[in-house]
C-alpha cells in the first residue's frame, strides 16, 4: 500500500523525527568521508542506503542544500559542494560575528548549562579534534540562552564539520595555540567576564580564520 493511502486511514499527524534522523545520518556520512566528493546522490539512493522512505530523505537533502553543504545538480540529484575561498571567508566572518556575542551572553548569565559545560571532561580534549571543537563551540552558544543565536552557531559549525574544514594538518604549534584559545575562553566564562569572553572568542576565531584562509588559498 502506498504511503499516501496509509496516511489517509492512519493517525493524521505523526512525529517528524524521521527527517531529522535522515538529516543527521546524511551529515554523518558526509562528515566521515564515506561518500566521495564527486559522487552524485539521489533521493532514491540516500533513502535506500539509510533504509528510510523518500520523503524524509528529500527533506533532509533540501535542508543540506539550504545550509550550503550540497548543490542540486541539473537533471536531478545532489552533489557535495566544494567550498570556494569566498565561502570559507563568509563562513569565518559569520562565526566571528555571532560566536563572540554568544560567549559574552553565556558569561553574563549564571546558567546551569554553563556550569555543566565547565564541569565536563570535554575541556581537556585537544582543540585540534574537530568533533570536540564543534561540541565546545556549540555548547558555549547554547549557554548564551538565546536559542535562535545558538541555532545559527550550530548550523555554521555543522556545516564546517560536513566539509571537514577543520582538518588542517595543524602542526603542533598551531594545535597548542588553538587549545590555548579554548582555555582562555573557558577561563573568561568561569570568571563570568563577558568582555573577556567576547575578546578571547574573537581572538580564537581570528586565528581559525587565518589558518583556513591560508589553506583555502593554497588548496
Amino acid at each position, binding site marked *: 500500500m502506498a504511503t*499516501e493511502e496509509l*496516511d*489517509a486511514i492512519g*493517525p*493524521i*499527524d*505523526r*512525529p*517528524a523525527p524521521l*527527517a*531529522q534522523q535522515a538529516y543527521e545520518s546524511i551529515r554523518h556520512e558526509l562528515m566521515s568521508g564515506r561518500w566521495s566528493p564527486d559522487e552524485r546522490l539521489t533521493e532514491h539512493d540516500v533513502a535506500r542506503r539509510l533504509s528510510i522512505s523518500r*520523503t524524509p530523505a*528529500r*527533506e533532509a537533502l*533540501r*535542508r543540506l542544500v*539550504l*545550509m*550550503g553543504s550540497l548543490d542540486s545538480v541539473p537533471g536531478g540529484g545532489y552533489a557535495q559542494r566544494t567550498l570556494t575561498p569566498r*565561502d570559507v571567508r*563568509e*563562513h569565518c*566572518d*559569520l562565526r566571528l*560575528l*555571532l560566536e563572540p*556575542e554568544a560567549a559574552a551572553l553565556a558569561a553574563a548569565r549564571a546558567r546551569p548549562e554553563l556550569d555543566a559545560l565547565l564541569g565536563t571532561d570535554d575541556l581537556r580534549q585537544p582543540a585540534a579534534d574537530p568533533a570536540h571543537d564543534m561540541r565546545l563551540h556549540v555548547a558555549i552558544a547554547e549557554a548564551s540562552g*538565546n*536559542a*535562535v*543565536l545558538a*541555532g*545559527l552557531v550550530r*548550523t*555554521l559549525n555543522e556545516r564546517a564539520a560536513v566539509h571537514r574544514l577543520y582538518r588542517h594538518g595543524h602542526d603542533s604549534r598551531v594545535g597548542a595555540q588553538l587549545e590555548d584559545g579554548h582555555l582562555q575562553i573557558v577561563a573568561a566564562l568561569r570568571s563570568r567576564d563577558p568582555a573577556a569572553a567576547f575578546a578571547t572568542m574573537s581572538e580564537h576565531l581570528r586565528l581559525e580564520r587565518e589558518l583556513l584562509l591560508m589553506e583555502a588559498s593554497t588548496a
Partner: protein
Amino acid sequence: VSRDSLADTAYAELRSAIAGGALAPDTQVVEASLAGMLNISRTPVREALRRCELEGYLKRGDGGRLLVHRPTAAEMRDLFYTRELLETYAVRLAAERISEEELVRLDELVAADRRAVKANAMDELASLNEQIHGLIVTASRNRTLDALMSGLPGRAYGLHTFAVGTNDDRARFVAQHEELVGLLRDGDADSAETLIRSHLGTARDLLLAGLAER
C-alpha cells in the same frame, strides 16, 4: 508545477497564516484539511508542515498532534537580538556592495510600500517588508548570510508587526525603508546601521506589546 514548488507555496501560505494570526496559537493543524484548503495533495503539505515545525511555527502537543506555536516574549527578544546582529552586519556590507540594479529594484519596492500603506494592505506590506529586508541581505554579497537569514527560525513573526501597529507605525516603517535605501545609495554604512537598529527595535517593541495584550 513541481512538487518542490507546491511544497514551497504550502509553506509560505501556512507560515503567513500563522504569523498573521489567521491560524491562532494552540490551534491544531491537520494535514488533510490543510491539503483541502490549499487544494493540493498531501505530500507537499506534509513537507510544509515539517518545515514549519523545524522553524518553530508549529509544535507537538499531546499524542503528537501538531499545534500552532504560541511565541513567547523571550523568543521574540532572542529573534530580534539575532536579527539585529545579522542585519546590521548586512547593511554595512550592502552599503559598500549594493548594485545600481538592486537600488532601482528597492526604489520600486519602496514605491509599492507607500501605496500599500495608503491602501492599508497588511498582507502586501508584510510581503514587501520581507522582500526589502531580503534584498538588502542579498546585496551584502555574503551568500552564507543570505542562507542563514532565509532559514532563520521564527523569522515570520516579524511580519505580524504590521497587524499590531497603528497606521502611524506602518507609515513610519515605510518611511524608514525609504530612508534606508537612500543611505545605501550614499554608501553611508554608519547611518544605515543606526537606522536598521532602531527600525528593528521598534518592530520588536510593537510585537512584544502585541503579545502582552493577547
